[in-house]
């Protein structure tokens, strides 16, 4: 990949895996130290957490929670992508439209999702629709704002070239502007993935309680910190899986940089 790293080496996947594991070990050590130094069992030890994970897994609660949450999460995230990318492109494509809408987009994205929950309950109820909507509302913003910025950042020389061969607006967007905005969109998708996940938990806490968010509430309210940590780590792992899958798309679309 073309990158600033031309100023330094590109490392092999193996080296990177090794340093990541090294860092993981460091984190585990810090965690273990914290667990024995913070009073009143607020931080469970890694081992206790590991045992708790085993328990939750064998009870099947983890799997069920995961399944519920992932369903909500991926639906909301998917819908967010389907809305945000076309809307971001349209906002970039139609300058007046974009400039008009953008402050409302910023306004909306600065408003806590929690603030809309009463309204969402009235309109969408307590079920999966409401949850998916809350996830969507969170994930849509970074994707939209990044896509919009990427589209506005398009290379005017290439656009002029495309105009000169008679490409229409649609073709200019699909062939020049959007591919050029890909790096922005990918960052947006990354951020959307993480925020979507956070909102999954929010949705599961504030509408009908379910999934990993529900487990988080149970273990948090009953101070079962080892189980609580299992859920937190589980959420972090989902975040990593999704953001790392985006790397595949990113590498595929960025082949030309090699």
């Amino acid at each position: 990949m073309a990158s600033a790293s031309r100023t330094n080496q590109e490392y092999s996947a193996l080296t990177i895996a090794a340093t990541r594991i090294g860092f993981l070990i460091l984190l585990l050590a810090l965690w273990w130290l914290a667990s024995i130094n913070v009073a009143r069992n607020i931080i469970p030890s890694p081992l206790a957490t590991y045992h708790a994970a085993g328990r939750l897994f064998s009870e099947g609660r983890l799997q069920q929670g995961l399944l519920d949450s992932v369903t909500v999460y991926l639906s909301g995230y998917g819908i967010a992508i389907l809305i945000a990318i076309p809307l971001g492109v349209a906002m970039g494509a139609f300058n007046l439209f974009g400039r008009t809408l953008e402050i409302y987009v910023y306004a909306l994205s600065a408003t806590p999702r929690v603030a809309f929950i009463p309204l969402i309950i009235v309109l969408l109820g307590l079920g999966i629709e409401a949850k998916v909507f809350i996830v969507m509302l969170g994930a849509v913003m970074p994707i939209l704002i990044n896509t919009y910025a990427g589209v506005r950042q398009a290379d005017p020389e290439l656009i002029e070239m495309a105009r000169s061969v008679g490409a229409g607006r649609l073709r200019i967007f699909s062939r020049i502007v959007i591919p050029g905005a890909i790096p922005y969109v990918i960052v947006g998708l990354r951020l959307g993935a993480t925020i979507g996940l956070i909102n999954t938990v929010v949705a599961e806490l504030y509408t009908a309680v379910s999934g990993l968010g529900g487990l988080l509430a149970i273990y948090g309210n009953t101070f079962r910190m080892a189980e609580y940590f299992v859920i937190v780590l589980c959420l972090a792992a989902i975040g990593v899986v999704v953001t790392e899958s985006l790397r595949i798309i990113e590498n595929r679309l960025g082949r030309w940089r090699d």
Partner: protein
Amino acid sequence: SGTANAQSDEPFRLIVTHLEVPLVPNSVMDLAVELGYFEREGVDVELVRVQQTPSALAALQSGEGDMANVGIDALLQVINSGATDFRAVTSPNKSLPFLIASREEIATPQDLVGASFGVGRVGSLDHSLSTLVLASMDVDIEDTELVNLGQPNVRAQALAAGQIDATTMSIGTWAELPDTTGLHVLIDQDAYYEAAPVVNKVNAVPGNVLEDRPEDVEAVIRALVKISRDFAADPQLWVDAMSDALPQTDVAVLEMLADAFAESWSVNGGMSAAELSYTSDWLYATPDFSEIAPLELQDWVDFGPLDAVLAELGTEDAMDPADR
């Protein structure tokens, strides 16, 4: 350490889980500040407001508070999970006045069969209480469609929005709902308490505070007992204080509530050993506690400070029992 006057150098931080003076007897903590009760007992109380019991307990654990008004279920849990030095010392509102509200179509508890019923979550205190209350009316809560809704205000909102048919809420929440057309009280707070006579909130302190600031702890308890006695003696005092604190609240509502609370003031500190034991026994039988070894009373309650206060002020036998 020690019991010297150095105790009062720093304010005594009392953590409460309400954001405004609440429309329940718990308001004694806020009003004791407003009306100078703490000051008169020589303790500089600073109220720290948090949203929920977990935050309150986390604050207590971090030394960010000296006393916290928390649910007994949470207190037992946190002690079980390692905070073994926490003790309940008083209960300004031994039981929150809960009721079950529902849509008007649900005319009797029996109509709840097949209807949707909002709970915090399965296993939460409100769920267990509702189970107990409905059972006393011959309704098995399992016959309703349970919806886990988390926060009390979300449950109320869901009921108001018509997304659920019934739920448990405090009388204060009910009083604050802006528009209750189409809704009614299915089981009122008296019937509710009768069916589920459990203490649900206590003021807890960590061991180091008991050790380092015993006089302050006693002063706080003394102030709370005194204000509770004054309100019990003259409900109008509470109504007046509340209308000052919450000017936008309808006085008629306050008067109605004052009536409802006639028996609810913790004039003897709200710490009946029998009631507390009953409560903990009952809690240990609920699903949330299924894997937890029960605590003895002395492992989570310290009557010492309250007894010292009652020794000084005497006990009023007509009100909450002070049995040990």
